[in-house]
């Protein structure tokens, strides 16, 4: 019985154990304080102070300009002709978003099963080989690479190759989202119930047949869910990619900003919101159909 207090004494001498969560909390706090110090003290780094009365006045003037207050001409969002002109741009933007999600889906569909570790080197791999094992790493590295680079940067790179238009923008969005969709779907495959797959294997199915009959059908519903979820995000990003890839609403937004046509900016923002709401509604209907 005399050993019990000794153990207590021994453990109490140890330095307090720093848990991972504890360290994370400290790091997060440090980051938050550090960033705000940096951001607020940025007048030494940047040309502008964080905040001043002047900024507020400037903001007020911009808001008035957006609403067309104090301008002699009719604001663009009150002109029927301006609506007609921009409708075509909204239509193009919608087409760009569909093309983008299509490209992302095709790339992800062709690769996601090969990015799942249980298929490539885990219990569902019939034999271990370096070809399949390294295939896994290639696919996952591809996803990490395409995902880490934002859509806009992809667009800046791709625009070197293609003439401005729908395609380069859609490609930029598609490549980035292929990485996102692929990673999410690979993780779905890694979480699949393996019993039906092992049963298929034992009834004589080869590796690709197990993929086609067991893995793909089981993963597809979640894939479709992610597809619509990404489409909803893509439509929000299409305008941004359009800034550089010059398709749809984005280019017009950029030009209107540069020429101080702020009421046109408002009109474009209205179209933008219409598209976002429309896509959310369409996705909701299609999602119900998938069930």
């Amino acid at each position, binding site marked *: 019985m005399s050993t019990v207090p000794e153990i207590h004494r021994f453990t109490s001498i140890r330095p307090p154990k720093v848990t991972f969560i504890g360290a994370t909390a400290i790091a997060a706090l440090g980051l938050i304080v550090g960033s705000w110090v940096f951001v607020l003290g940025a007048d030494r780094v940047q040309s502008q102070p964080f905040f001043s009365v002047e900024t507020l006045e400037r903001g007020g003037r911009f808001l008035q300009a957006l609403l067309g207050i104090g301008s002699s001409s009719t604001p663009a969002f009150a002109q029927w002709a301006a609506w007609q002109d921009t409708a075509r741009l909204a239509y193009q933007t919608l087409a760009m978003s569909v093309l983008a999600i299509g490209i992302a889906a095709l790339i992800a569909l062709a690769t996601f099963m090969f990015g799942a570790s249980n298929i490539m080197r885990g219990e569902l791999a019939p034999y271990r080989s370096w070809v399949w094992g390294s295939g896994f790493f290639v696919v996952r590295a591809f996803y990490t690479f395409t995902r880490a680079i934002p859509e806009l940067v992809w667009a800046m790179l791709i625009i070197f190759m293609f003439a401005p238009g729908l395609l380069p923008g859609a490609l930029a969005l598609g490549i980035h989202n292929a990485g996102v969709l692929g990673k999410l779907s690979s993780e779905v495959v890694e979480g699949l119930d393996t019993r*039906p797959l092992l049963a*298929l294997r*034992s*009834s*004589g*199915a080869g590796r690709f*047949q197990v993929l086609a*009959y067991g893995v793909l*059908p089981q993963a597809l519903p979640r894939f479709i869910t992610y597809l619509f979820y990404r489409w909803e995000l893509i439509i929000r990003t299409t305008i941004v990619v359009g800034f550089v890839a010059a398709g749809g609403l984005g280019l017009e937004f950029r030009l209107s900003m540069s020429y101080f046509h702020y009421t046109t900016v408002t009109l474009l923002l209205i179209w933008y919101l219409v598209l976002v709401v429309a896509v959310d509604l369409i996705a909701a209907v299609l999602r119900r159909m998938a069930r």
Partner: protein
Amino acid sequence: MSLASLESSRTEAAQAVSLSGLSKAYGPIEALAPLSLTVAAGETVAILGPSGSGKTTLLLLLSGQLGPSSGAVTLVGREIAQLSPGKELAQLVGMIHQQFDLVPNISALHNVLAGRLGEWGLFKSLVSLVWPQDRPMGMEALARVGVADRAELRAGRLSGGEQQRVAIARLLLQDPAIVLADEPVASLDQARAGEVIRLLVRIARDSGKTLISSMHSVELARAHFDRLIGLRNGIVQFDLPSSQVADDMLLALYDIKGLRRED
């Protein structure tokens, strides 16, 4: 092509299964003591015993999913270790589990046709996902197990009993010489369980297949199988035609007091 053309002469050898000194140990724990026995072609065998008695281990060894610690399994004259794990093994042994054998998101018919994957090339199997190949054969198998009207439904939407029937239909298309079943009706209610076991045994007899099944229900095993093997603590307690298995043997098999404590 019809089902009849499949029910082939794969079961020619008189001995479907032969075990010689087969044993399995997980570390220091002996799951199955050295065991030698033979099962004749076309025989229906039920393995009985309390949980942890080694039933599942024995079935896994027979199906080649597990390697033995010693001894060998010979199926229809061929040693299991010499067979390639894919198609070759699938022609000899087919397996049916308690549940979760089917892919829930594809139709019952596609699940059944998956029994043909060992025969089909990759291209044909891909085409079949859109235009089902060998459809008459699949429908015939579904009709034989009594669920032809469910062919187009997703397997996940079927009841437990219907799912087991579809799994049996898949075995019909896979057409192995030996069918292994791991407590195939343990998750069904009594009435369904009786129907499914009757179906499984009848189909095995009709097509001359050897059936080896672990069973949790003694009554069902006695009523439908030719031969009963009692396992306890990895040791065979009896191995007799069902008619010769007496009640006191079964009582002793499931007696709680005598069960090994150390594991």
